[in-house]
């Protein structure tokens, strides 16, 4: 088991390196860079920027150098000093901008995962055991509806309902008085009271998907011969189902977690933009649009690392649950 974890952990390192390269490359894709865009914008407005100032900035940010040198400087900064470079648009170090937002993205994704588990597991089991009953049909229908609604559309609908029915805006993670307050228990509670809307918006599709997944897998397991064996032992029906097929379907459930977290982190970006949450999404969008390369690349890198880590955790959980993986 320990060996397995170590192996999976080592496995992660090349992936992260590759991701960092890809993240950096993506940012280089659009023609020009932040400064040339800036200069062009000034010129369009009939102003000129001091050439010397521009070339000095170019020097500071290493923009004139070849891409691989820029990458090397950036990645070295991250590894040695935790320095992700500077954001052009904000004029501040990237590390000063990303951590709280990443933290909130993490909190949002984690809460949503919990929400999905709490809803999807029991509902999925119910739906499979009571296949073709009214309850199963209701669950299946709701599942389809949940899957067919894009996250952002659901967010818009929530916003509309919040505004027209309750007369309040549902965006943000904090009430106005807490937005820039330091962390405290009231601020945390305030966040929780706002968090449920993005959690529901973000979790709906995942819940629907996981319910279908759990149901399908459990139905599959319920047909396996070992279920008959368990019945033939004389075990009560609830124990037959919980101890054997549900336990094995749990493996699928856990292995589905990796995919779910990936879609959550990624879905959180767009939901946050719509609901204007102070998470990574809105800032990433702006950074991409203005070619604020270090900021954008750092976001993509860190979100990917979050994904890789969550995959790792779910793999370890799976190995812990399933002896077939643990022993091979």
């Amino acid at each position, binding site marked *: 088991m320990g060996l397995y974890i170590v192996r999976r952990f080592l496995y992660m390192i090349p992936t992260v390196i590759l991701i960092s390269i890809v993240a950096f490359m993506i940012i280089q894709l659009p023609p020009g860079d932040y400064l040339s865009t800036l200069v062009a914008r000034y010129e369009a407005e009939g102003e000129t920027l001091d050439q010397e100032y521009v070339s000095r900035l170019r020097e500071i940010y290493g923009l004139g150098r070849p891409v691989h040198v820029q990458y090397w400087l950036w990645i070295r900064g991250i590894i040695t000093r935790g320095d992700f470079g500077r954001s052009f648009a904000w004029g501040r170090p990237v590390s000063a901008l990303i951590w709280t937002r990443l933290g909130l993205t993490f909190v949002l994704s984690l809460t949503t995962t919990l929400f999905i588990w709490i809803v999807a597991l029991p509902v999925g089991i119910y739906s499979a055991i009571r296949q073709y009953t009214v309850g199963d049909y209701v669950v299946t229908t709701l599942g*389809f509806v949940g899957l067919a609604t894009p996250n952002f559309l659901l967010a818009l609908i929530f916003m509309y309902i919040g505004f027209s029915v309750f007369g309040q805006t549902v965006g943000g993670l904090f009430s106005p008085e807490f937005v820039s307050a330091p962390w405290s228990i009231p601020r945390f509670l305030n966040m929780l009271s706002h968090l449920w809307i993005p959690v529901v918006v973000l979790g709906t599709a995942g819940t629907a998907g996981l319910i279908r997944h759990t149901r399908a897998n459990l139905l599959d397991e319920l047909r396996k011969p070992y279920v008959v064996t368990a019945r033939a032992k004389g075990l009560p029906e609830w124990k037959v189902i919980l101890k054997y097929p549900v336990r094995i379907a749990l493996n699928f459930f856990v292995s589905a977690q990796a995919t779910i977290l990936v879609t959550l982190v990624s879905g959180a970006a767009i939901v946050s933009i719509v609901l204007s949450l102070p998470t990574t999404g809105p800032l990433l969008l702006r950074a991409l649009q203005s070619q604020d390369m270090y900021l954008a690349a750092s976001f993509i890198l860190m979100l*990917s690392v979050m994904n890789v880590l969550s995959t790792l955790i779910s793999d370890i959980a799976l190995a812990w649950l399933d002896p077939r993986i643990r022993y091979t």
Partner: protein
Amino acid sequence: MTADGRNDPTGHQSSGPATPETGVGELSDPDVLGHAAPSVDIAGGEDEMAMLGQWKLMWIRFKRHRLAMVGVVLVAFFYFLAIFAEFLSPQSPHDYNRHYPYAPPQRLHLFLRDGDQLRFRPHVYGYTSTVDPASFRRTFAIDDDQIIPVRLLPQGPEYRMWNLIPMSRRLFGPVEPGAPMFLLGADRLGRDLLTRIVYGARVSMTIGLVGVAFSLIIGIIMGGISGYFGGVADNIIQRTIEFLQSIPQIPLWMGLAAAIPQGTDPLLVYFLITVILSVLGWTGLARVVRGRFYSLKTEDFVIAARVDGCSSLRIIMRHMVPSFLSHIIATVTLAVPTMIIAETSLSFLGLGLRPPVVSWGVLLQAAQSVQVIANFPWLLLPGLGVFFAVLGFNFLGDGLRDAADPYATG
């Protein structure tokens, strides 16, 4: 072949409810043999009847799947809209009317009270507008006194069907050309939302297909190599897939889409977006194909073909692909809605398709702020298009999958 016929290469269930021995499994079960034998013929492509047998069985199961039938209707409806958008919509998508920005939806009335009796006179009511002196915001009210008659096949400005056939009649519209008829309301520039949703179907419904087609080509090639040859190639491709899937897709798409320069030709943007969607889209398909190859590789009929000295390409194309084609079709159908949602989301963020292209995502872009939604909620209507199209594809794909393999897991 396992006890329950799961690995039956034709994918049809051979001993399920029909034979009482399900789950017990009998190696010499004549029923299994009776069904498995034609599957070998299918692979050989020699027996046309046996081929028919597989698809016919699938069709029988598919027809019984009620949700799938709903899916067929929904999907067919949207493609019908997409194909005949010019004729079906009352206006041209770029016709704007500066007198009616954000005009609210009108109700279509079929009967007109004429004295004591009701006459069949389809019509809508016109608007009266007032401009708020403080905010300069124009507000509309439906005016019962202005009756705008509506008819089928009215004469209107000339347009070209599919950019080819000159026509002047559309399916329905106001009798008098240019009279305000906004059944689903108007947007900021006074363009008819109904028209734009119908036209939006054209882009949104095809971008999924094109994206899936790209993904499918890459997916089958990569998955095929991975599953058939295994070894190093398999390892490399699997690591690549894992790697691509570890990057959060929306940020990745956002990053790639942001790289498309402003002012790029709309057609090229359309093409590039499909390519971007396929960057991740193929990974899922490749996994399915690989899995199928893996399980088929050890099937007797494939081994037999190999012993006979068939080339790899021939074994793949003639023997293996036909036996899992139905699964691929089902998987592809289930991949289309993901693409539709992805396009809509990207365009909504302003990173995907851009005006003047009309897609559901582009239309929803107009509904980004609370103020706009609160005042003009009809701008959310293109979302219904997305919803029903995705629902239709999911129903359809589910039905296909169940028909192709009743025991597949979700």
